[in-house]
């Protein structure tokens, strides 16, 4: 570096009034006092969670909130997952562990024997949900995720199916929009011919 590249900046000189610092202090105290004596503000600042949750304008938009995962069930009550490993492939946190096996049902090839999600490792990005070809894994609006040990925060298949039972009324399962194996041509309904009825 050359000398001429260096720009020397002088500190601005404070006036006598500024050096007192009183105007600035009073300015800050004014804001504090405003909040202290405003009844409306005082009531809104403190909220008695969990008895009192956010309502009205500040309420969570549940439809797209990314909370705890669930594993959806198909109309027959079986786990909808086909154990394709797409979610664990897409997962940037490597928190999904699947063990696949031959399914006991004749209309399906594969199903998850084990399906574990480490909810502590998860970053709730929702990539698993996007990757799933049969919309079996979804994130729910349930954000109250607590546990006392690390082990209980690893959700297994049963627990994830239970989350589905708990949240299906709040957020019903979407129909598989992209890959529907019953559909002719294996394409989405926009692409394939509409003369075959979709199985739901």
């Amino acid at each position, binding site marked *: 570096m050359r000398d001429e590249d260096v720009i020397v900046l002088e500190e601005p000189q404070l006036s006598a009034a500024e050096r007192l610092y009183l105007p600035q202090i009073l300015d800050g105290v004014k804001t504090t006092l405003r909040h202290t004596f405003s009844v409306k503000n005082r009531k809104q600042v403190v909220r008695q969670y969990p008895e009192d949750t956010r309502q009205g304008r500040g309420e969570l938009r549940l439809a797209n909130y990314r909370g705890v995962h669930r594993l959806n069930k198909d109309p027959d009550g079986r786990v909808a997952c*086909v*154990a*394709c*490993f*797409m979610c664990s*492939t897409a997962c940037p946190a490597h928190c999904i562990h699947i063990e*696949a*096996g*031959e399914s006991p049902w004749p209309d399906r*090839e*594969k199903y998850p024997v084990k399906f574990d999600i480490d909810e502590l490792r998860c970053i709730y990005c929702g990539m698993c949900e996007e990757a799933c*070809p*049969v919309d079996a894994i979804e994130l729910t609006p349930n954000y109250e995720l607590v546990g006392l040990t690390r082990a209980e925060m690893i959700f297994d298949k049963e627990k994830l199916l239970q989350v589905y039972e708990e949240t299906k009324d709040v957020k019903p399962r979407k129909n598989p929009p992209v*890959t529907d*194996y019953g559909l*002719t*041509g*294996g*394409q989405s309904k926009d*692409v*394939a*011919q509409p*003369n*075959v009825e979709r199985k739901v």
Partner: protein
Amino acid sequence: MPKIIIDGQEIECRPGIPVLQAALEAGMDIPHYCYHPGLKIVASCRLCLMEMKMPHPKTKEMAWAPKLFPSCQTPAKDGMEVRFDSDAVRANVRHVMEYYLLNHPLDCPVCDKAGECYLQDYTEDHGSAASRMVDEKQKNPKKDIGPQTLLYSDRCVLCSRCVRFCDEISGTSELRVINRGSRGEIDVFPGRPLDNALQGNVVELCPVGALLDKEFLFRQRVWTLKTTKSISPVDSRGQSIYIDYNEEGIHRIRPRFNEKVNEWWISDEARFGWKHVHRDDRLNQPRVRGSDGLVPQRWEELPEFLRKRLADAAKQVSDSVAVVLSPMMSCEEAWLLAKAVRDVAPQAVLFHGFVPVVGEDRTFPKGFVVKAEKCPNRRGIETICEHLGGNTANWGDFLGMASSGKIKAAYVVGGYPNEWLTSEAVAAIGQVEFLVVQDLFPTALTEHAAVEIPSVSWTEREGMFMNCDGLLQEFERALNPLEGTKADGQFFFELAGNVGLFRAKKVREEMAAALPVFADVFIPQELPEHAH
């Protein structure tokens, strides 16, 4: 060497090969299903069609012929001009791909071939996103065609590679195409399942997910696997393989092209010959005999202890120290161990280890051989012993000398995947006063051993094997050594008085300087994706 022009580019190719093969060897990715360089040509998939310049029937001028020719069936002739990069060829590929996908179930998410499937790759490159098929898809059943293999007929593209493989390579002809036209499917004869010593190859041969290995079925998706180049230790030919593994361990073994040994195929023995690596009863700590039996010993103290004890034994009677070099060891390991022991006991006798032989050599119609000798490195051990000279002898001599009590101290290396000791051998070796045993599993020698050292499987080591024809081939490490163990090479490296990390390449340089044979390592040509 004929020169042909493909897409305006002049290519020199081997004489007598098809244009498709010439194009593939030149690095072009021409779609094809039925063509395989190791099998007869049927030209049935119609994907590799090309345009060719021919003399016009009237004017005799060279012009592009109006119809397309299968490039797999057209031999490359000097001066011929063909093209793949044209509208007609592209239209053909697009239509043929659409035709293949008419009845394909598109169940890639649950298909084990996804990720290495030619149909998937070609559809991505040449196919269309939408199907115009309005009728119901034809659903063919899943068939259990053999003890190791499943056939998903609705994924099949009827390339008939598997049929030709069973006809030509294994010579057992179990598979056939039954029915014709759109109802055609692959099947076995009633009561004759696909069951031969090479049958696993049909799984890799299948360009789609129709033939799948029961062992690997649903285990892993292929993109989660890492791959290492290796040599199969199951027989003395040293078949080239890929080991596919991840942090959970090995998941499968695939053939690796090797023009001098196994070409595109491997035997089922090699394919399934990795189960012992994950056996629960592997030795996992070195133990030394104290007053109350074998007690665990730290690895760091072993080299010094062994050197001292072997030197003591050599001081009493100079040629009473024996080293048994197992043919399961790599050349580097055998070299280091022999050197290390000769260093402290210069008159030590080097013995060739036990060579397991099962049945007879089996030769298949096109020359694939499954050897009866079930160890990878007998020739390598013999070469090393011969070079190091001094006292050398074979396994039978070792048993004889041991039972007569002439051997006071012995370092016996095993490493065989199966039980290898006969009761006579155990009785004979039991006579040795100071016995060091290095093996994968607990054996009958454990109760006679003064020191027991765990060995690791070939997947956890690196080195080279010399096959039964004297071909030197290298293999790489796939897994880390089992917890508590140390790679054999690393231990011998330390036993030989070295400090630091054992690297097979370094030792190889040293060996090559002493013995030029070891400089000549054969590395097979690596084939690009879709090359066969």
